[in-house]
């Protein structure tokens, strides 16, 4: 007997799904902003000639790039609160994990971007009397960031997909809403299909924007880093 599809019970829970999507965007946005800022800091530390700055930064980057995000999330949610004696909400644990995790990837993008700028730009900045940090802020980074845009957007999209892991520690994101609705309505097929489609639409649109931006940069003759 053919299965009778029935999307009505799922659609009746549309407000739940909307709230889940809003929470997914909230955790993605939070981790993205923190990740970029922290990533820049990590990149600058790693590029430092002083080894007591560059080694710890390199260590953090390597550890977070080399271990699975879900293990990191469990560590921050179940282990860290006991270690430091504070209560962690699922949102905070997720925000901390995804921020540091994406920061370690953003750091490598920043590093590649900064290193791709020709030495002459540094020399020129020094010649007109700029200090190192002035040259970095006014001359190097503005040029480097433009080359990094495609890699950034790619990472941001990866980050959004990674945030689904937060459903495993019961933060009410879109995937968690799916788990709840599926159990409540006994309609797992329809629920998970709808939720997969919602993710697809959001992520596909973001990917298309990223593709357009990359094409435009390529047409303007801008070189990019990955």
């Amino acid at each position, binding site marked *: 007997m053919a*299965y009778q599809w029935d999307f009505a019970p799922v659609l009746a829970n549309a407000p739940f799904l909307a709230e889940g999507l809003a929470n997914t965007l909230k955790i993605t946005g939070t981790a993205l902003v923190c990740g970029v800022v922290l990533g820049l800091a990590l990149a600058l530390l790693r590029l430092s000639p002083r080894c007591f700055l560059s080694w710890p930064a390199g260590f953090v980057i*390597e*550890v977070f*790039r*080399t*271990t*699975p*995000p*879900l*293990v*990191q999330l*469990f*560590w921050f949610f*179940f*282990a860290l609160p*006991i*270690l430091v*004696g504070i209560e962690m909400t699922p949102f905070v644990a997720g925000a901390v994990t995804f921020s540091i995790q994406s920061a370690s990837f953003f750091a490598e993008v920043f590093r590649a971007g900064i290193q791709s700028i020709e030495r002459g730009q540094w020399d020129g900045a020094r010649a007109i009397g700029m200090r190192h940090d002035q040259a970095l802020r006014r001359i190097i980074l503005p040029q480097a960031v433009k080359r990094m845009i495609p890699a950034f957007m790619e990472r941001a999209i990866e980050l*959004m*997909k*990674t945030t*689904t*892991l937060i*459903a*495993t520690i019961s933060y009410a994101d879109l*995937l968690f809403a*799916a*788990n709840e609705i*599926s159990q409540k309505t006994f309609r*797992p*097929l329809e*629920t*998970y*299909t709808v*939720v*997969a489609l919602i*993710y*697809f639409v959001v*992520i*596909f649109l973001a*990917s298309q924007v990223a593709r357009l931006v990359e094409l435009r940069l390529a047409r303007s003759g801008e070189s990019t880093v990955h």
Partner: protein
Amino acid sequence: MRWDFASVFDNTDALLVGAAGTLRIFAICLVLGLSLGLLVGLGRYSRNRWLHIPATVFVEFFRNTPVLVQILWFYFALPILLPFQISPLAAASLGISLNSAAFSAEIYRGGIQSIETGQWDGARALGMRWGQAMRRIILPQALKRMLPALTNRAIEIFKMSTLASAVAYVELLQQGKLIASLNYNPIEAYTAVAVIFFVFLWPLVQFSYFLERRLRRDE
């Protein structure tokens, strides 16, 4: 707070079972994902629309949805359409393999496209058919260029294998959860799991850096 790893070492057996589970699903997804990816990549490369369009839809769909959603779909949703149950291993392997196939398809396609047309012309001049040229001339050269990206995919697959714990497949993280809940030692249990993953993955990551450096030097 005193660290007490003894309670973790007492459970070495459970961790070994978990490590075996992790390696098993990693091997399955690596083989399935990378070989299916080659087929899909050839479809993407093909000018035949009956191959190109389905391959493109497959790639776009699996690249643009989160792998955890895919795994849960295969575990909770797919069995409704099938006359039989799906095991946690099967659901997680399906999700991770198809996801990896979509990502590696683009690696294969890019690698094949990067080979100069002169290589194709030369192969044809020697009387090779398309399949022969692809197998003997194009793919061996393309594989060398793709090796760093494929190694990165393997690393991603290893990391993704932890998602199988979401459907209660017995792997390292799942065993870590079990140990933590039985012994009330989440700090030690999860730290041990993280360290084990690091030990497995660090050599792979270093190997991928080495391949990238060598490729840059050779090109």
